[in-house]
């Protein structure tokens, strides 16, 4: 309670005490004046009530005794005597002394207080003499917090009296209050509503059945109805005790519920049960119970079933910790199994044995399921990494004197554990860049009309077989001119080159590129973005930049869900098979000798009027055999450009279990791994972005 309120009370109390004195003296003259008696009582009453409220407990307790006596005087049980006036005047002086004492003056004199009180008590009639209540035990209409932790389910029937509205009570707000206590279902029973002509608009004809699951205890529920206790019929029964006794998921039968509620007699229930139909239907048909009541009982049944089921699942949900290398072994084994299954399918297809075929199909189905499940086990929500970044943002913005808030989205998105681990460093780098280069200092932001606090938003979302991670800042955006000038200075592009926005943005991924004016501890050494790009491509992902000056930059990283097994396209050149990740493939078109001649030796194909450059893999891999007259171009989408790869044949989709090439071949450009095909032969997995890159480098050199 603030001092301001205490001061207001004291001023008021002094006034009241002065008035009390006058009134008492008046009373001495005219002992029967009821109006004066009332004034004395009210003064006492106010001092007591307000005193307790503003923390003057001693005054409240003391005044209470005096008030009690005057209550009796008011009721005509005690006569006003000289003694009473004397005692009351003495009491008034004590109250004033106590008020003074609260300012640090005066001394409490408990013996004197007790003497006055004893004197007053003597005046009370015998029956009331001993019943001097202790002052102010605060009774609170607030819901009492019961400490029972189990959720208990109650059945509440709340039947207000019909004139409940006349007391200013709104039953709906009571029901809303119940809803806040826990999981709650309410059924309004409307069977008592009369025809419109007979309807009294100021009366309440509805009653409610409420099923409530809560941990607050029965008293808290009663407290909701504290003001209407006398104006309603309230029945509260425990129908589920939180699983202390029974754990059966099945709840009582409909008939039993109705009988328990008193809506149906048990003999009627027997009669209904003897017919062999659904209980509720018969009960309604026979007119023994109103449909509303049956509906309400059904709701109860449903509610309890649900909470019991929930409890059971909670009981059984548990997890085991497994070292991740065990999972790696499992995934490896599944990989082997996928390979063997492919062989089985191929062999059985050649045998024309229906029995073998059906077994092979069964094995295929199970293998696919097993594969999905095994890979799923390795999936982790990306959220753990996100929270690490929050800390990073906090520390960095402090260091750089910027005000930055980080928001995240999609923390529950799941990714392969290995992918998440390997994604950490690139993401850290990207976020650092956003903070260091992207978001301006608070003063600069303010001068451009932005809020002082910058925002970095990190989000993850599933998209097909990949996860899209976007880092979005509301900073200055990329400076195209600066990037271009820098690239020219570093000799990455010629000064006259015409570059699209996309091409300029992609320059920042070039090795050795950095536009930061000064080197900070955070970024700006120019080892950033090219390393980020490499790391993401190693994960078979891609990265994309979008930026608007003054508005901000969005970097989107697309990462495949898993590293172990991918969907891919199996192609053939000569006698060798190759595998291309299906996520990059857009379409396949034919390439005839005539097409090649039309292009006059340039590696360009016309696909529905669009020019698509292609890379003849036969030449690139120096495969000597002769090409067939009609070749195939597999058109892929890499770094937002369409590029074709020419192969002899497209065999079809393939489940590829990725095997690493081993240390000796680790540095081979253009291959990301190998896989074993159904017939036991090995197919190499093409690293499409890398292939494209090396061809581009050669072109540039030439």
């Amino acid at each position, binding site marked *: *309670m603030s001092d301001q*309120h205490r001061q*207001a*009370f004291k*001023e*008021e109390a002094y006034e009241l005490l002065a008035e009390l004195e006058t009134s008492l003296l008046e009373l001495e003259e005219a002992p029967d004046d009821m109006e004066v008696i*009332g*004034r004395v*009582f*009210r003064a006492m*009453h*106010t001092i*007591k*009530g*307000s*005193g*307790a*409220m*503003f923390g003057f407990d001693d005054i*409240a307790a003391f005044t*209470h005794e005096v*008030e*009690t006596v005057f*209550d009796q005087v008011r009721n005509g049980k005690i006569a006003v005597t000289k003694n009473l006036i004397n005692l009351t005047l003495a009491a008034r002086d004590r109250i004033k002394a106590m008020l003074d004492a609260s300012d640090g003056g005066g001394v409490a004199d408990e013996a004197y207080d007790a003497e006055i009180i004893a004197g007053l008590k003597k005046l009370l009639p015998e029956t009331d003499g001993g019943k001097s*209540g202790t002052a*102010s*035990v*605060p*009774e*609170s*209409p*607030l819901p009492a917090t019961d400490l029972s932790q189990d959720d208990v389910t109650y059945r509440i029937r709340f039947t207000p009296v019909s004139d409940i*509205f*006349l*007391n*200013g*009570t*709104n039953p*709906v*707000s009571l029901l*809303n*209050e119940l809803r806040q206590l826990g999981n709650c279902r309410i059924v309004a029973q409307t069977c008592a509503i009369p025809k419109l002509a007979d309807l009294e608009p100021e009366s309440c004809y509805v009653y409610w059945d409420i099923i409530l699951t809560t941990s607050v205890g029965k008293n808290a529920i009663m407290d909701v109805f*504290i*003001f209407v206790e*006398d*104006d309603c019929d309230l029945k509260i029964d425990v129908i589920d005790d939180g699983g202390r006794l029974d754990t059966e998921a099945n709840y009582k039968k409909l008939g039993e519920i109705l009988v328990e509620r008193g809506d149906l007699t048990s003999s009627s229930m027997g009669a209904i049960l003897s017919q062999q139909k659904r209980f509720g239907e018969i009960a309604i048909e026979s007119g023994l119970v109103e449909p509303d009541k049956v509906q309400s009982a059904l709701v109860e049944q449903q509610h309890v079933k649900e909470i019991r089921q929930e409890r059971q699942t909670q009981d059984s949900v548990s997890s085991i910790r497994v070292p991740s290398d065990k999972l790696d072994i499992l995934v490896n084994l599944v990989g082997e199994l996928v390979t063997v299954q492919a062989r089985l399918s191929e062999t059985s297809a050649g045998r024309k044995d229906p029995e073998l075929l059906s077994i092979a199909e069964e094995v295929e189905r199970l293998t696919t399921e097993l594969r999905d499940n095994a890979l799923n086990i390795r999936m982790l929500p990306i959220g753990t990494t996100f929270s690490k970044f929050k800390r990073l943002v906090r520390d960095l913005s402090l260091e750089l004197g910027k005000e930055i808030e980080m928001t995240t989205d999609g923390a529950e998105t799941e990714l392969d554990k290995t992918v998440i681990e390997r994604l950490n460093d690139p993401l850290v780098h990207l976020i650092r860049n956003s903070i260091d280069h992207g978001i301006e200092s608070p003063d600069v932001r303010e001068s451009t009309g932005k809020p002082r606090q910058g925002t970095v938003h990190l989000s993850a979302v599933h998209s097909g077989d990949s996860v899209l991670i976007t880092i979005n800042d509301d900073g200055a955006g990329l400076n195209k001119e600066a990037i271009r000038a820098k690239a020219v200075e570093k000799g990455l592009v010629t000064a006259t080159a015409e570059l699209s926005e996309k091409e300029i943005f992609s320059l920042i991924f070039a090795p050795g590129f950095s536009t930061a004016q000064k080197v900070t501890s955070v970024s700006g050494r120019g080892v950033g973005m090219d390393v980020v790009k490499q790391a993401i491509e190693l994960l078979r992902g891609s990265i994309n930049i979008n930026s608007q000056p003054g508005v901000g930059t969005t970097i989107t990283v697309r990462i495949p869900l898993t590293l172990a097994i991918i969907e891919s396209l199996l192609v053939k050149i000569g006698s060798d098979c190759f595998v291309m990740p299906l996520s990059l493939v857009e379409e396949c078109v034919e390439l005839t000798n005539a097409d090649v001649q039309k292009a006059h030796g340039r590696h360009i194909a016309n696909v529905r009027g669009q020019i698509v450059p292609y890379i003849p893999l036969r030449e690139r891999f120096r495969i000597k055999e002769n090409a067939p007259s009609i070749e195939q171009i597999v058109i892929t989408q890499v770094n937002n450009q369409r590029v074709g790869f020419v192969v002899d044949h497209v065999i079809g989709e393939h489940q590829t279990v990725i095997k690493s090439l081993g240390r000796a071949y680790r540095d081979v450009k253009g291959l990301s791994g190998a896989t074993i095909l159904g017939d036991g032969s090995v197919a190499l997995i093409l690293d499409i972005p890398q292939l494209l890159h090396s061809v581009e480098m050669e072109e540039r050199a030439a």
Partner: protein
Amino acid sequence: MGKVIMTADDSASVRQMVSFTLKQSGYEVVEAVDGKDALQKLSGQKVDMLITDLNMPNLDGIGLIKGARAIPTCKFIPIVMLTTESQDGKKQEGKAAGATGWIVKPFKPDQLLAVVKKVLG
């Protein structure tokens, strides 16, 4: 616009405390110094809720509740009375007169707000 609550109390300190607490929570407050004053103000202005003390000069709380319920705009509004523990009989009398609920003195601002929220919905 916030809901309008009238506090009728002859104690200025209680009125001040009630008014201060409610205003802080976004309610508008009309103060009345006793039952008579309250009734006069109620007939001139629509309020959404009434908080009244029981012991007041001129017209006490019970009289005010009865009078308020007779005013058409006040027929269904929540009326909360301030009582002390020594007035249990008054509680019943108040309810019979048409009070919605009660707050026992002494009370804390939080308790007042809880009750206001409870009856005002």
